[in-house]
């Protein structure tokens, strides 16, 4: 026994870990590539062309907090929508006179704009939207963020989607665009691309879907019946999706590159870390709320479990893959076992290659010029981004353990000012 026993134990252990990691990575890859499986699937992820008939009326919620600089532009653009029947409800805080003033001015100019004031002592996005929910007159409630660039024809497409599919929820695409800003924004943009372009459609098909934070449309009665958003959840959007799909509501996802809501990545690495921490913590909360347990099939529950735990497994994978290979190379394990330890790395490599192709496709879809240096950044930045994700995952668990579930807003911690001079907020959260 002795050394042989130890070696055998080590071999079995790393083989088991490697195979587990391999299957995890393989499934994630399979799902990530969902939209490109066949040309037919790709075609089905798009909005179908509206027939020119407008039947559904919209109430568009626009929560704004210290966003006086961009709010007016966003409202103007929303008002340019081709759809004929919608209202915009701007939600402002009672302690935020600057934003309130911009909102009031817009309301005075156009009767379709209304202002609702949120008077909660501790403010967050779900509370703000719940405040506005009783004021909604439309058949469908839509959510946007104050800095979103919304396509004028989006509402007409969503209207058509509601009518032709009998959906309770329609999720449109959201896309970060500024991939050239920094190495992490490049990866962040791609995460959105793979999520909204591809993975989310799989979730819709499987009947379990964590919704995105904006460009999401819910039938008003369905939303009221569900009690609105969970004010204590850090990922209220994800939570809403999980609750609605768990009780069998029909969710439809559509992605069109010229119809997506365009956003920008967080302005600094720190704010990205915080955003991701909040999102991870939110996922953890949704997991612990156990609404997903009502899903009818075992497969759906498994998908739910897996999806909500993904950030943590991702962190784990990133740390274990290199360790595993090091063990295989430096310890004298049998060649067969050493081979198995390379399996997760192989999957990671395939994912990497598909990311490169994804970046190319992203550039094509959005008419953006992707240069060689961007591909280089994508590859070199990969491991570092993995560290960031792992950091956010660990941080989320730590915060959740300590019971800290306040909204960690960058505006309180001295954030980066972008070109428009606005303090960017942490609200665009999207799983990837």
């Amino acid at each position, binding site marked *: 026994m002795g050394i042989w026993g130890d070696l055998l134990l080590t071999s079995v252990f790393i083989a088991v870990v490697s195979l587990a990691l391999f299957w995890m990575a393989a499934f994630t890859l*399979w799902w990530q*590539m969902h939209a*490109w*499986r*066949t*040309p*037919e699937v*790709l*075609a*089905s*992820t*798009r*909005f*179908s*062309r509206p027939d020119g008939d407008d039947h559904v009326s919209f109430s568009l919620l626009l929560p704004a907090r210290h966003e006086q600089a961009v709010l007016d532009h966003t409202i103007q653009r929303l008002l340019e929508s081709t759809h004929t029947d919608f209202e915009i409800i701007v939600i402002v805080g009672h302690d935020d006179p600057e934003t309130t003033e911009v909102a009031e001015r817009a309301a005075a100019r156009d009767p379709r704009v209304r202002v609702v004031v949120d008077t909660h002592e501790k403010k967050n996005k779900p509370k703000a939207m719940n405040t506005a929910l009783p004021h909604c007159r439309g058949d469908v409630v839509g959510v946007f963020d104050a800095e979103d660039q919304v396509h004028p024809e989006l509402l007409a497409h969503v209207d058509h*989607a509601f009518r*032709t*599919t009998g959906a309770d929820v329609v999720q449109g695409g959201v896309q970060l665009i500024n991939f050239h800003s920094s190495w992490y924004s490049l990866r962040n943009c791609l995460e959105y691309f793979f999520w909204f372009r591809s993975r989310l*459609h799989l*979730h*819709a*098909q*499987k*009947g*379990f*879907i964590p919704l995105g934070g904006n460009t999401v449309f819910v039938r008003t009665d369905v939303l009221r019946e569900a009690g609105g958003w969970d004010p204590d959840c850090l990922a209220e959007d994800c939570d809403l999706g999980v609750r609605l*799909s768990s009780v*069998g*509501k*029909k*969710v*439809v*996802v*559509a992605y069109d590159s010229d119809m997506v809501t365009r956003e920008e990545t967080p302005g600094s690495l720190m704010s990205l870390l915080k955003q991701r921490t909040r999102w991870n913590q939110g996922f953890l909360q949704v997991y612990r709320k156990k609404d997903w347990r009502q899903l009818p099939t075992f497969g759906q529950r498994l998908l739910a479990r897996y999806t909500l735990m993904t950030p943590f497994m991702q962190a784990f994978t990133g740390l274990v893959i290199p360790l595993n290979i090091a063990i*295989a*190379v430096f310890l004298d394990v049998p*060649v067969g076992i*050493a*081979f198995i330890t*390379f399996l997760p790395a*192989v999957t990671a*490599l*395939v994912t990497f*290659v*598909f990311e*490169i*192709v994804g970046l*190319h*496709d992203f550039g094509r879809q959005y008419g953006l010029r992707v240069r060689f240096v961007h591909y280089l950044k994508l590859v070199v930045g990969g491991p570092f981004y993995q560290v960031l994700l792992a950091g956010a995952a660990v941080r989320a668990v730590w915060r959740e353990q300590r019971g800290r579930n306040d909204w960690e807003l960058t505006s309180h911690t001295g954030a980066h000012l972008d070109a428009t001079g606005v303090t960017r907020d942490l609200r665009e959260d999207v799983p990837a």
Partner: protein
Amino acid sequence: MTSTLPAVTTPEVPAHRRPVSTARPTGRTAPSRLRSSRSDLLLCGVLLVAILVVQGWNIADYPTLSDDEGTYLAQAWAVQEGRGLAHYTYWYDHPPLGWIQIAVLTWIPSALSPESMTVGTMRAAMLVVSAVSAVLVYVLGRRLSLPRWAAGLGMVLFGLSPLSVVLQREIFLDNLAVMWTLLAFALAASPSRHLWHHFGAGIAAATAVLTKETMLFVLPAVLVTMWRHSHRDTRKFALTGAVTACALIGLSYPLFALLKGELLPGSGHVSLWDGITYQMTRPGSGFILDEGSGSWGVLQSWLYYDRVLIVGGLAGALLLLVTWRWSVTAHALAGPSAAVVVLALVALRPSGYLPAMYVIQALPFLALVLAGGTASVAHAVLRRRRAAGEPRPVTAGRYALAAVLAVAAGAYVVPRWYDGDRTAVTADANAPYQAASKWLAEEVEDPADTRVLVDDALWLDLVHAGYEPGRGVIWFYKADLDPAVTKTMPRGWKDLDYVVASPTVRRDAVDLPNVKAAIEHSEPVAVFGSGEDRIEIRQIQTSAGGVR
């Protein structure tokens, strides 16, 4: 219930991104799901039975056992026995995946009856490979839009040509590699254009290369097929996925060498580098069209078995190239045509080494291209410039011409194939081998303590007869080329008891001093067969005039 937006069901999809082109080449039956097409299943099934009967009947006795078959099967035996990748030091002559597959294929029969693990008996396992390959030729033909009869013709050409029958019966790595390559082609031409089918095509292509490295030449043709069959919107993902899969699986071979510390040359161990260097610097066998060169001889040996497939296939490839601009079939068969062209060009290298098995990897493509060329001619005769109101006599003339052509082709091919295939199912080419094996098993008193040089084809027979594998029964050339074996014979030929001089041994002994000496210092004690093909069992005579 949730679902994605069924945009594809609505007629209005933005024109600049037509989701799926539904148009198929005209005049061709659409390759719908073959599994649910009764006529396809029936045709393919009947042809498969015919191929299996012709290939399987008399498989152990014809053709003559080849040295290489013995090598691969013995190495498969070593894998089964847990002796590593070969019972001698594995020296990276070929990637080991081929005989690992043979080991898997023969696992159950050899577990039930260990004695059956000999070349003649285990040729039966190759029937499985032939069957899969033949079906894949049909499937590929249909996926490349060939009409049913032409796909069937391709399958017949591939499975029943006397050349195919001879070569596909033998335990050659090339046959396994062909199966994987055909799978790669079939997946690349998958009608559903599924990303993971293309990914699978990459894996299958890499498996083919790791089975027999010469399949590298065919990879561009797989890529051509995939390019043609993928959709513009998903092509870049499909192709990159396939190339990545292929490269990653292919890299596992150098990784294997690296993990064993045998990637680069060094003293005291074999290496992948040395193995590749050996293969790349094998002495050339001359220009294939240079009468009298080794390559010319190899070509003649192929043509001896069947001219139809080789000459007809090359002509078919030429026809498809010439008609490329207007022929639908030529476009559809771009992949197989490319494979034929590349393989022909490689064979035409002026000073390369051309092994006899080289043609095996070309067989399915020659068959498909010839079938495609035939379909093209049939189309030209029956349909070209045929207007709706064509006078009946003209139409009748078209059919008469087609019938004449078909009968003429049949009159040329059938008698030749009948002769070739009749030889294959009746001739007994291996009686001398079997007799030699029997003699060594029964007439030698103490096999466990007897040392004998044999060619690889007989090696496993003697292992089953009780000789000690590797040290007692020795692959003849290891006596000179493997230091680990030479070390066990400090007195050279004097440490041996017998040498079995088969044609292969006599041919190669010229360059192998120990083997040559063993033959010179031995006397035949039993001779089986006569002439060039005879097998002599020679007993070593020490200088004192007695045996060891």
